[in-house]
């Protein structure tokens, strides 16, 4: 057995295709680690001077003191709002599509969702700026429609197709025999959907939610256009009608002017590192749930 494995391994080493694909995999790994390493190295001056005070600081005034908390708050608040608005609709839509639609309409809905999931953020941003921000301003009688709420709503629209289509995939991945078993016990389709399919698809749905929230956290241009661009924690802190700032929109606004070094640049890199860690945590959590579903 061992000899066979060794033979098989040495056979692989002789194949040019093996080297091609293994080199590709290595490049992907090095790129990811290189990005993380670059962010860590570039952030060292900030954390060595300010320590964790960088994360809890509320003022972003150069040249020597930067605080990331308003941006962290803005990112978390908009991602939370996006999840709050998008998840019930996305999950309802996924259950309906997967469990009740016949194949042809289901494929049409899937195709539409996958198309919407691929629309660039800038397109959503322009629509948000011209339609959504105006609507929020008029409905809530605000001076300016650009706010944390507007950004959260826009992100909800943006992540809705992703969460819907991935949740639908998770539901469809539940083997048909479980549904038929439930039907054979006299359960109707609604009971089967909620008592059999949904619980069994839950790990995959959680994975879809994490991936959607990950996208919401990382979205730059669309959020930049509607969030208001104010580096402040609202007063009171839950006043979501106030303008705010997220990490990506902060980076988008200031990266060009700070490029080339200086403490300002390192502070932006440290913000990038925070975002990287947040997104990586979500991505790993999503992957963990998806893996659980596949092995179930």
């Amino acid at each position, binding site marked *: 057995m061992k000899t066979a494995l060794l033979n098989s391994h040495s056979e692989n080493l002789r194949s040019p295709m093996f080297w091609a694909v293994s080199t590709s995999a290595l490049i992907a790994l090095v790129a990811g680690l290189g990005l993380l390493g670059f962010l860590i190295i570039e952030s060292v001056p900030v954390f060595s001077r300010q320590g964790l005070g960088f994360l809890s600081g509320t003022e972003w005034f150069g040249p020597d003191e930067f605080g990331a908390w308003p941006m962290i708050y803005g990112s978390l608040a908009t991602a939370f709002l996006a999840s709050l608005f998008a998840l019930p609709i996305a999950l309802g839509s996924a259950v309906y599509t997967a469990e009740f639609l*016949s*194949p042809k309409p289901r494929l049409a809905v899937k195709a539409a969702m996958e198309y919407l999931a691929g629309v660039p953020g800038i397109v959503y941003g322009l629509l948000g700026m011209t339609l959504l921000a105006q609507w929020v301003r008029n409905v809530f009688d605000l001076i300016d429609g650009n706010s944390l709420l507007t950004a959260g709503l826009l992100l909800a629209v943006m992540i809705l197709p992703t969460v819907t289509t991935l949740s639908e995939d998770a539901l469809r991945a539940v083997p048909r*025999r*479980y549904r*038929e*078993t*439930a*039907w*054979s*016990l*006299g*359960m*109707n*389709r609604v*009971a089967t959907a909620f*008592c*059999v399919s949904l619980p*069994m698809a839950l790990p995959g749905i959680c994975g879809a939610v994490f991936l959607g929230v990950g996208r919401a956290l990382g979205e730059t241009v669309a959020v930049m256009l509607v969030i208001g661009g104010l580096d402040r924690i609202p007063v009171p802190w839950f006043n979501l009608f106030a303008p705010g700032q997220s990490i990506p929109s902060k980076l988008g606004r200031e990266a060009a002017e700070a490029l080339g070094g200086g403490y300002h640049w390192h502070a932006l890199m440290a913000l990038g590192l925070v975002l990287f860690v947040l997104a990586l945590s979500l991505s790993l959590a999503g992957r963990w749930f998806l893996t659980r579903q596949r092995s*179930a």
Partner: protein
Amino acid sequence: MSDQIPAVELRIAHVFFKNHRVLEDLNRQFPSRSVTAIFGPSGSGKTTLLRTLSRMNDDVEGFRVEGRVLIDGENIYSDAVEASRLRQKVGMLFQKPCVFPKSIYQNVVFGLRHRDGIDRKAVPEMAENVLREVRLWDEVKDRLNEWAPNLSQGQQQRLALARLLILEPEILLMDEPTSSLDPRSAEAIESLIERHAKLRTILLVTHNLEQARRVCGEIVFMDCGRFLESPPVQLPPPAGEELLKKY
């Protein structure tokens, strides 16, 4: 259920998947409280027949039924009949056991949660009774909260049968329920069929003629989507010998 009306009746029924006719010219009555074996080669339409009787193919694209399929005198493919209501009367046991990823006990009582008029206090006793019926109680009584998918295949099939019997279906459709089971599990299921022969209408799809003879009052032959005219097999009929060689 009235003894005068056949439990299951097919009147010139044809079953199609798109334009392909998979069952044709089905004309037969299955009397109440009887056990009938449906015997035929692979692909002869036995499973499709059972799935048609329980409306399992309703959402399969292109599936349609022509003619009349009657359960207790009511055409089950009429608009007035809800599939879930029908299946409360007509239970189906599949060839491959399918248990939910839950505990053994939760599996047994799974269907009861969706039935009206169940005395919740009586449920544990009902669960014990059906587990005894399928001869699983002694094997699982000390581990009812354990994960059902960890049971052996034979135990899972008996658990699936217990989960069905607790709902007391009037008609039981069994699709080769013992085909891949250990002798102990197969014997437990055969014995249960014999005991229930006077209580329910049972249609048993099987490839095992000896089993059909042991437990069934009548054997119906199918081939190429049709019922074959043959007498009930008490002894191998002369006409049946040639047919049996095919299987």
